[in-house]
């Protein structure tokens, strides 16, 4: 059919039928007759402007209402706003709306504190991953409330994932399996480390404990009593050991070890071992809160001591349990009674030991390491074979 003007067509007497063809005319070019379809209509009358802008049409975040600032301020492209993984390398992060929907991987070796500010938009959520050795701790800033189950706001182990969810006005919850309460807070002593005597140990960075004022404290337990000097701390030649059969305790290196008779122990009994050295080098050995014993040994003090493990001296390995090893770079004689605590391990945090291994209580009895909870805190230990015992601690 040749093209016709609309005025040349026969009028429709009634509502057009399905088969009737209605003509429309292109905006430009040769007039043609087209059927009425969405495509043809859109082609004939495309969107020419958005929000007052003309030309190529790009819809900006601000053209869309109802998404909230968490979405609209994140990026001009929604993709990174919702699908990015964020790396947090430091020990502190305050969340922002740009974190909404993201996976935040915390990889510091020390505890990472994540703070929820009161500026987040309703509906905020994100995932927190403990990507390294440092635990992830979540806290609420002023004006926000973090509702915890059992006071648990710390991760427990590497690769644990925590969902942070906003459920009301400035109200947040955490969702994860295996959260724990502040492991640094003293909540009695539950765990110890058990060494099987064959090859179990806890290694840490080889460290020199300089001669001078210092203190060593530990709790040990032996399932059987053998005449073996069992290692508490050891190195290539230096050692702190105790023989539960003959009752001697040793401190020093193989060429100049100081030894003192502090008394034998019974199988299955926790024993507290304590050593002080004054600034002038006077050593005193203690067992179970008893009177101090001046050890025998050459020279003043035990000299610089180089340790790199719990549980091994040369080819001798601990066959028993060790717990709550603490080291000070000061003479703690005046606090001896407090540290012994009547035969029960107690919170030492107020006494500021330089190194302090809780041997399972910080770690919640899981994982392959023990955290150094001392003020120095640099000697986290790697467990080789030793196992946490959550039913036996001094």
């Amino acid at each position: 059919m040749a093209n016709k003007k609309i005025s040349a067509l026969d009028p429709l007497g009634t509502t057009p039928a399905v088969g009737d063809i209605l003509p429309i005319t292109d905006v430009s070019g040769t007039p043609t007759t087209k059927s009425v379809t969405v495509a043809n209509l859109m082609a004939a009358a495309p969107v020419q402007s958005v929000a007052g802008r003309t030309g190529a049409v790009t819809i900006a975040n601000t053209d869309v209402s109802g998404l909230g600032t968490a979405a609209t301020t994140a990026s001009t492209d929604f993709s990174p706003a919702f699908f990015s993984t964020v790396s947090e390398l430091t020990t502190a992060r305050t969340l922002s709306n740009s974190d909404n929907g993201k996976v935040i991987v915390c990889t510091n070796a020390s505890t990472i504190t994540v703070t929820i500010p009161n500026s987040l938009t309703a509906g905020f959520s994100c995932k927190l991953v403990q990507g390294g050795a440092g635990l992830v701790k979540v806290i609420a800033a002023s004006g926000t409330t973090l509702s915890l189950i059992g006071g648990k706001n710390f991760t427990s182990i590497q690769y644990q994932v925590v969902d942070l969810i906003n459920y009301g006005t400035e109200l947040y919850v955490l969702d994860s399996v295996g959260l724990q309460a502040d492991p640094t807070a003293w909540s009695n002593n539950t765990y110890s480390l058990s060494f099987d005597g064959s090859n179990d140990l806890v290694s840490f960075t080889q460290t020199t404990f300089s001669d001078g004022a210092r203190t060593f404290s530990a709790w040990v337990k032996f399932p059987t009593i053998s005449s073996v000097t069992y290692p508490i701390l050891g190195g290539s030649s230096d050692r702190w050991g105790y023989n539960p059969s003959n009752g001697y305790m040793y401190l020093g290196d193989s060429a100049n070890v100081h030894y003192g008779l502090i008394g034998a122990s019974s199988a299955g009994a926790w024993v507290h071992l304590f050593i002080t050295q004054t600034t002038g080098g006077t050593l005193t050995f203690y067992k179970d809160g008893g009177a101090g014993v001046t050890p025998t040994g050459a020279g003043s003090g035990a000299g610089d001591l180089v340790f790199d493990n719990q549980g091994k001296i040369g080819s001798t390995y601990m066959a028993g349990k060790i717990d709550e090893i603490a080291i000070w770079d000061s003479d703690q004689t005046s606090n001896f009674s407090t540290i012994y605590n009547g035969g029960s391990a107690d919170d030492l945090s107020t006494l500021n030991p330089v190194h302090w291994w809780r041997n399972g209580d910080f770690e919640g009895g899981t994982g392959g390491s023990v955290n150094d909870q001392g003020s120095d805190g640099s000697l986290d230990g790697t467990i080789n074979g030793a196992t946490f015992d959550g039913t036996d601690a001094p």
Partner: protein
Amino acid sequence: MRTYVIADTSEVSGFNFDQLVDIDESYIRKSLDGSKILARYEGTQPSFLSGKTEYTHSEILAILATDEWTSDEEI
């Protein structure tokens, strides 16, 4: 239950430490002359230790207390 076997040191290259208690070769215990090693595992015996004599905890402690494994000169 932890099980213990003794192997020649030359065999350590064939060990899969994912199946052993010890972390890696640097942590494994050797006899004093270095000719033997102690391997420890829990559960089923790894195939690379197949045929080795298995020892219980008390049995291996008795072996490790001998002069072959423990020096008398310590302390």
